[in-house]
């Protein structure tokens, strides 16, 4: 209780609120601009948050995390161009409502639903995280190793169309984590005599390069020849959704729980949550045939669903140290850089930080709604910022952000290499999240495996037999990587033969 009250006191301090407001504005901006993503915003702002430092820095990252997903709905509703993949489902009914001449109503519903989804997920996080952490306290090195493999395998199998490519991406990440001085023996690995590499590959430039820089390059290529196309922004009135409250509330509650559940599963994301929520809202609706013509539930359901994944993704992150998606992977990197190690021990050793994160997350959602309702007209105008201004700003932020962390020009070169690598990875369908997760979890996986080998004295099989949780986690990992793709391939072959 003392931690809870202290956290409340810290979060509502003017400095913290200001940082959260800045994070919210930044998050909404990256969310609404097509071509920019929430992960890109988180990566670019990571050095800024680390420079701010302390609790305010964490709160700023949380504010970006939740508001970027909401931001994507603004362009989806106004110009039928989802700012992020999470808002693609919102565009169906949102844009239809705009075409009916009610863009303000659509934006109001989306803002309110996003806030409710975020708030419900924050409450769920507050309730489940300590319980799960208590249970996770029984975990030993075997469970931690299995958990790391589970997180990696889920992200590798779900986020990539090709399982091998997902695994390759994760393995490259794990290999990058081995670079530098090995902590147990003090041996330098893969440093090639470079003093810079002795400390290992820094997360920040790699995150910025892979998520922000590469995305900037992709946008530059894709926007070739589209420079002079101006979008017409419709006039926005009546943004407060008072008259729709009764209609949308059931959809909001249902979708929020769907979002929380999906968010808590590593490897999934807001796009899945929003489509599942949309389909469920349609299934439960009295007139499902009206969906797609601009019904309020068609906007409320995907928005509540995709914003609820933020709280859901924080559950495995805070309790087990396993990020649920790319956004929470960046948050994990930020927390590690700030000296906060997510996992079950976090609740007993740094309980104050946990409650700051949870309360901050609640307040960030409220701020997001406030900023959304008050600044919606302003944000709508921001979508007209041309690429020739936005792109250099992104690139300069990437360079300065990479340099600013350690005042090292080496970090800038690492960022450029990671950016170019990320560009080719994105072009060729090699997903980035497994690589980042591999880089972040690499040391944890290696040290726990070495502990397991030492404790078991080499008899790994019999050791794991006495660790049912670890066995179940490893089994699920194996199934997600090999058995499910194998089954789907078999099904396809059968269908072919029948045809």
């Amino acid at each position: 209780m003392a931690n809870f009250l202290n956290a409340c006191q810290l979060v509502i301090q003017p400095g913290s609120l200001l940082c959260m407001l800045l994070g919210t504005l930044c998050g909404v901006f990256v969310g609404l601009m097509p071509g920019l993503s929430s992960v890109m915003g988180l990566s670019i702002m990571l050095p800024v948050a680390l420079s701010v430092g302390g609790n305010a820095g964490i709160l700023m990252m949380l504010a970006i995390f939740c508001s970027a997903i909401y931001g994507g709905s603004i362009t989806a509703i106004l110009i039928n161009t989802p700012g992020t993949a999470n808002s693609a489902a919102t565009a169906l009914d949102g844009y239809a409502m705009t075409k009916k001449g009610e863009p303000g109503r659509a934006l109001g519903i989306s803002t309110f639903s996003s806030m409710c989804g975020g708030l419900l997920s924050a409450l769920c996080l507050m309730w489940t995280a300590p319980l799960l952490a208590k249970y996770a306290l029984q975990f030993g090195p075997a469970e931690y190793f299995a958990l790391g493999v589970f997180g990696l395998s889920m992200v590798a199998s779900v986020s990539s169309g090709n399982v091998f490519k997902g695994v390759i991406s994760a393995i490259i990440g794990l290999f990058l984590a081995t670079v530098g001085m090995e902590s147990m023996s003090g041996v330098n690995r893969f440093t090639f005599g470079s003093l810079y590499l002795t400390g290992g590959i820094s997360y920040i430039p790699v995150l910025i390069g892979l998520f922000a820089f590469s995305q900037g390059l992709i946008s530059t290529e894709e926007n070739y020849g589209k420079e002079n196309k101006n979008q017409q922004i419709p006039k926005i009135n009546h943004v407060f959704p008072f008259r729709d409250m009764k209609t949308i509330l059931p959809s909001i509650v249902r979708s929020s729980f769907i979002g929380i559940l999906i968010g808590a599963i590593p490897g999934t994301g807001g796009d899945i949550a929003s489509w599942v929520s949309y389909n469920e809202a349609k299934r439960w609706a009295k007139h499902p045939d009206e969906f797609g013509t601009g019904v309020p539930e068609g906007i409320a359901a995907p928005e509540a669903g995709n914003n609820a994944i933020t709280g859901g993704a924080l559950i495995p992150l805070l309790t087990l140290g396993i990020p649920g998606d790319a956004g929470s992977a960046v948050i994990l990197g930020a927390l590690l850089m700030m000296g906060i190690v997510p996992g079950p021990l976090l609740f007993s050793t740094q309980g104050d930080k946990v409650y700051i994160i949870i309360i901050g997350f609640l307040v960030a959602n409220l701020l997001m709604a406030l900023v959304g309702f008050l600044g919606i007209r302003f944000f709508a105008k921001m979508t007209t910022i041309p690429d020739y201004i936005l792109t250099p700003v992104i690139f300069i932020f990437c360079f300065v952000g990479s340099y600013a962390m350690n005042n090292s020009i080496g970090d800038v070169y690492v960022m450029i290499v990671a950016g170019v690598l990320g560009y080719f990875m994105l072009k060729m369908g090699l997903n980035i999240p497994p690589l980042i997760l591999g880089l972040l979890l690499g040391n944890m996986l290696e040290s726990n495996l070495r502990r397991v080998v030492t404790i078991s004295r080499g008899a790994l099989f019999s050791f794991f037999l006495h660790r049912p949780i670890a066995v179940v986690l490893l089994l699920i990992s194996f199934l997600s990587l090999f058995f499910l793709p194998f089954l789907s391939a078999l099904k396809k072959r059968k269908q072919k033969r029948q045809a």
Partner: protein
Amino acid sequence: MEYRVCLLQTRYFLSTTGVLCMKKYNCILAGILVALSTMIFVQTRNMLEVTNNMPGPGIWPRALAVIMLLCAVCLLYQTFFRLKSSWSEVLVDFHKPGVHRVCLLFGLFVTFGIALNYLGFVISSLMFIPAVMVVLGERRWKHIAVVDVTIVVFIYLIFEKILNTVLPAPFFM
């Protein structure tokens, strides 16, 4: 029969220059993985098997190298015998103007990275931003100048004055 198909596909691989298709990319990726795993084995050959009664520092990277090799073999198998896309399916075409633009930006980034070390943030950014804007198709010089100065001042104020971080300084300061 499969051997002949393999030979034919290798001929395709060599004949398509300036273009990256999924099959070609997969072959390059498999090659990189094989090279990387070989490098890991070479680099870890002198590392101890056991240190402080624990597995040595070379065990984990070697395990990763083995998985890398397996993935490379599976990827090659998939590419030559399972992947339905053809050698002519283009994913990155280096002849396209959009990709030219990206290549130009690559060059600019490297130049900027080096310039940052010697000329510092302000001078190199004042040159880098107009160059990027020109590559992006902007030709109005007044516009470029205003945007350039605004961005540099904005970032300088945020990082140097508000966040108190150190930005790269020129060699003469």
